[in-house]
């Protein structure tokens, strides 16, 4: 240990590697490349992981949609092909019977899924935007960022069927002048005036939905379009620890039961499970991370073996030098330590340079992908991974350095000196 901390040792090592520049550079490049690939790959994988993560964070990860379709089997006197309709009462049944359900938001829409859009206007401007009838619980499932001074639909709005609306960034831009105050302003939806109470910030990663979407209270929507108890679809969020696939199955069975649908009829109700999709993507991202880890470590390994190789050749080249050193009184241990330390020193220097270079490249990629639609956010490599890579490099550097070192020591000084 004293040997490692001795300044003279390092002066000797530094002298030896700084005066064999070509050798040093070639050696360093091998490991530098390895660690660079490792850092860049695992950072990029992490960035992608984060990208997917942020894509889904707007929507509860274990949320799902349920909608009605047509039956495909006759059952209890009903013939096949019956058109199903979800009712508001289904929400209560689901909420009461399936304890894993945290939130359920019945929704209706005009101007989406093929229905004719309502005419929406203000003064002499008109536009065509999807119109949603929603409950406040909807934002619990798919959070919406509302600009300052505004709010989303609340329970009072529902209870009194208030004529209030939350509009989108685009609809605000198209309907209001720039110097106008949006909040408190009025828009006309199918000849009925609504007061704007909020503007939601558009988030592209929230599944379907757009920057022009207009939300009004579910009860107001019902009055406006005479939809009665009908519900377009349910947005449902299960508790974080619930098994979404299981919950989805339970909900479907429950719906079939209440609507008198054959238990084996899978066509009567449709559903889409975000949690399941999310799991698939997480699995994919994990696979990429794992792959990049393997590739990175393999590249580091190749780099370190390269160092060993070059040191081995250089030991052959330096046979005479090492013989002279031993004639002058270097013990085998001193010769061995010098070569191992050279190896470790080169490995660590190269490693640190590779880490810096890798980090720089990651930062560059990050700034390039900042504004484009690509799931890539905040590419980082966890510190333990970096430290782990450094430890691997030091250990491998030592082990691989031992081979040439042992070779250097195994040559008798007399043979080394005789070699002309």
């Amino acid at each position: 240990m004293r040997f490692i901390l001795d300044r003279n040792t390092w002066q000797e090592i530094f002298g030896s590697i700084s005066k064999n520049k070509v050798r040093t550079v070639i050696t360093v490049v091998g490991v530098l490349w390895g660690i660079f690939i490792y850092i860049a790959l695992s950072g990029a994988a992490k960035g992608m992981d984060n990208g997917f993560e942020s894509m889904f964070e707007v929507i509860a990860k274990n949320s799902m949609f349920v909608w009605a379709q047509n039956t495909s089997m006759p059952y209890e006197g009903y013939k096949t092909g019956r058109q199903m309709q979800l009712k508001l009462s289904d929400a209560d049944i689901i909420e009461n019977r399936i304890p894993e359900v945290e939130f359920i938001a019945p929704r209706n829409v005009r101007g989406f899924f093929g229905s004719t859009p309502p005419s929406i206007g203000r003064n002499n401007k008109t536009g065509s935007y999807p119109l949603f009838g929603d409950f406040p619980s909807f934002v619990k499932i798919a959070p919406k960022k509302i600009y300052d001074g505004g709010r989303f639909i609340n329970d009072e709005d529902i209870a009194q069927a208030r004529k209030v609306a939350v509009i989108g960034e685009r609809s605000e831009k198209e309907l209001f002048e720039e110097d106008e105050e949006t909040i408190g302003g009025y828009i006309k939806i199918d000849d009925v005036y609504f007061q704007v109470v909020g503007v939601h910030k558009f988030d592209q990663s929230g599944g379907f939905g757009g920057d022009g979407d207009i939300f009004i209270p579910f009860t107001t929507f019902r009055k406006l379009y005479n939809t009665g108890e009908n519900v377009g679809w349910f947005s449902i969020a299960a508790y974080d620890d619930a098994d979404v696939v299981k919950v989805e199955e339970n909900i479907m069975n429950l719906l079939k039961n209440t609507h008198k649908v054959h238990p084996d009829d899978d066509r009567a109700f449709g559903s889409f499970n975000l949690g399941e999709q999310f799991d698939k993507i997480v699995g994919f991202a994990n696979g990429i991370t794992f792959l990049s880890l393997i590739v990175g470590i393999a590249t580091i390994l190749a780099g370190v073996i390269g160092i060993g190789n070059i040191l081995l050749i250089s030991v052959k080249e330096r046979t005479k030098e090492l013989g002279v050193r031993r004639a002058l009184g270097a013990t085998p241990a001193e010769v061995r330590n010098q070569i191992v330390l050279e190896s470790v020193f080169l490995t660590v220097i190269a490693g640190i340079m590779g880490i810096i270079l890798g980090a720089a490249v990651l930062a560059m990629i990050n700034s390039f992908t900042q504004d484009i639609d690509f799931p890539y956010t905040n590419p980082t490599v966890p510190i333990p991974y970096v430290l782990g890579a450094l430890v691997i490099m030091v250990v491998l550097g030592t082990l691989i350095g031992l081979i040439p070192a042992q070779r250097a020591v195994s040559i008798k000084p007399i043979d080394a000196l005789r070699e002309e």
Partner: protein
Amino acid sequence: MIEINNLHKSYKMGSNSLHVLKGLNFSIKEGELVAIMGSSGSGKSTLLNILGMLDEADSGEYTLDGVPIKNLNETKAAKYRNKFLGFIFQSFNLINYKSAMENVALPLYYQKVPRKQREEKAIKYLSQVGLKEWAHHLPNELSGGQKQRVAIARAMAAEPKVLLADEPTGALDSKTSYEVMDLIQNINDQGNTILVVTHEEDIAHMCKRIVHLKDGVIVEDKTVDQVRASQYV
């Protein structure tokens, strides 16, 4: 200073072995300048290697400055070499990426002398061989004679008991050879014990004693009137 008794050494060459040293006896006192002469194959280099602890004898005794040299492992041999011996080689054997000063300081590094002192000492010995202003030059910027003088300074730097020179003038022309021998004589005049292996008669006669080896035995061991090399320089 050096005492050897019935020294034997043979090398195995395939199935037959070559008996190189066949029972050598001699002793060297402090301050002597001894030439070991002999034609090639006479065993003179083998003898020098054994004296230099680079090689080990099969049998016989070797005492250096009162210390019996036997059962050496590499580490011990390295320590003894560092403490007792200075080497001068025919092909100089300087480390080509180190400056003259760094080369001279190298044995001191292995003696764990701090860097500052190392450099001071190296400069001191370099000026002794007249190369002070060449201290920061690399070996390939020096002439053969200068290289050998650096090598001599390096051998001296560790202040060894004995200097072992293996054909120190073998790679030099005669003028430079005499310069180097002049240096060796001066070092000997300061009281250092020096052993020179050579096959050149004139170089041998610049020593104080000539030991003649032939086929692994000493055939002649005589004191000579030293020819001063300075008269040729």
